């Protein structure tokens, strides 16, 4: 019963949403909207509560055990302070909530994002070593693209940007589309397996 009810709900909504996709009728569109947006938001709101409670529990337990105490305290301070300042002063411009958002959260996010530039360099350095034929092809393609996208490329040769565009639009795009076809087919079969009930791992696996 514990598995049959979720499986039934999954199959029902899977088939319903599939059927609704092929209809332009307002009722069908309204129903799709209802399931995909409204119901989803309700489920998300409840699980968010579960997530926040779990976050609190995990951090409080770690503080109690003395594990990563400074990080955990900062996390909890962030979690608790934002709703408090939002509750008392609102979330409009000029409020403490917006000040914290603009001066603490956004710069921190930008900092983490900025790390990506350095990681790209270190990953490229490792990936572009010409250890084999395929790695050499990768290296040459990367160099071509890099040169063509900078001002130097056009100065070296007028054909360089053309060659780089050809590499991007033909061999690279063909490989990408082949992968996308595989992903699409994989998505179709996985969805069908879940709807029909062949795949029950998401329910914790098959009943023993």
């Amino acid at each position: 019963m514990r598995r049959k009810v979720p499986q039934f709900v999954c199959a029902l909504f899977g088939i319903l949403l599939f059927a609704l996709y092929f209809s332009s009728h307002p009722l069908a569109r309204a129903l799709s909207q209802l399931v995909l947006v409204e119901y989803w938001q309700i489920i998300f709101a409840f699980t968010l509560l579960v997530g926040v409670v779990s976050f609190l529990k995990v951090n409080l337990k770690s503080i109690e055990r003395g594990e990563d105490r400074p990080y955990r305290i900062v996390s909890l301070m962030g979690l608790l302070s934002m709703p408090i300042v939002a509750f008392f002063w609102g979330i409009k411009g000029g409020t403490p909530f917006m000040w914290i958002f603009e001066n603490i959260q956004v710069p921190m996010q930008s900092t983490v994002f900025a790390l990506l530039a350095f990681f790209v360099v270190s990953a490229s350095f490792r990936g572009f070593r010409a250890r084999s034929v395929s790695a050499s092809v990768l290296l040459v393609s990367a160099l071509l693209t890099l040169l063509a996208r900078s001002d130097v490329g056009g100065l070296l040769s007028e054909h360089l940007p053309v060659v780089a565009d050809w590499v991007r639009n033909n061999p690279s795009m063909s490989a990408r589309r082949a992968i996308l076809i595989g992903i699409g087919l994989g998505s179709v079969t996985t969805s069908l397996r879940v709807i029909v009930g062949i795949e029950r791992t998401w329910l914790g696996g098959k009943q023993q």
Partner: protein
Amino acid sequence: MNISDATERSIKNLFVAHRCLSCDIQEMSFLIILILSGVEADWFDMTRFPVLVSAVIAFAIVFYTTYHRKSRGKHKMRQIPGLKAVEEAIGRATEMARPILFTPGWGGDIQRPTTIASMNILSHVAQTTAVYDCQLVYPTHDPVIMSVAQEVVAESYARAGYSERFREDNIQYVSSSQFGYAAAVDGLISRLQPASIFLLGTFEAESLILAETGNSIGAIQIAGTDSTIQLSFFIVACDYTLIGEELFAASGYLSKDESILASVRSQDIMKVLIAAFLVAATIWATIDSNSTWWVF
């Protein structure tokens, strides 16, 4: 015939009213107007007919390979290095007495087939870690994924016969913000120093941040995603990468379940059909440049 915008607007307004007022008369009037409005509108969108035909063909192939007795013979699946390395990664973590970190990325939610495919691998990994008594840490950005993952891991531990080893706190919600999530997972990787890292799911810009951090601590990394852009980052930064449909075939590969393997075989049949269609369309378009029958 298309229904007028006014009727559509009134239906939307009724939805709002339906949410605000919960009286029975309101609900009745809402349903009556919806049914009546359907009299003059099309139930089937003809522009989506080719999609329906393709879907029916795909369903027929999947059902045939899965349920037809003769086609359910012994399926031989090619070796997928990334999946073959799963056992090695768990074994390594056990020998080193260090945890395993598994994360589904920031880009997806539980509705995505990629996340479901990732859950299938998680189930197998959790069952093995339960047997070896190896710590499995699962940080996620989505509370719905967290709830499902807790259920999947708990059931896997129970299936392995070690329910008492399951620690709910190891499957944790960290942040819904993309770089908040990336920073949290990076922090976990740096502090816990996991021996093995599984990056399987839908990843966006955080992919390389996580993969490079994992690489810097010398963890064995197995990655897989449906994003072709992030795949290139995983290929250079991780030890094994599941490309394209390999991520979706993982469930059958790891569980050796006949029905799942049969459905994986259907993917290959569909791939052959698509290739044949592309070749035919290419030849046709070359001969008759004005032809458009193959466009949909």
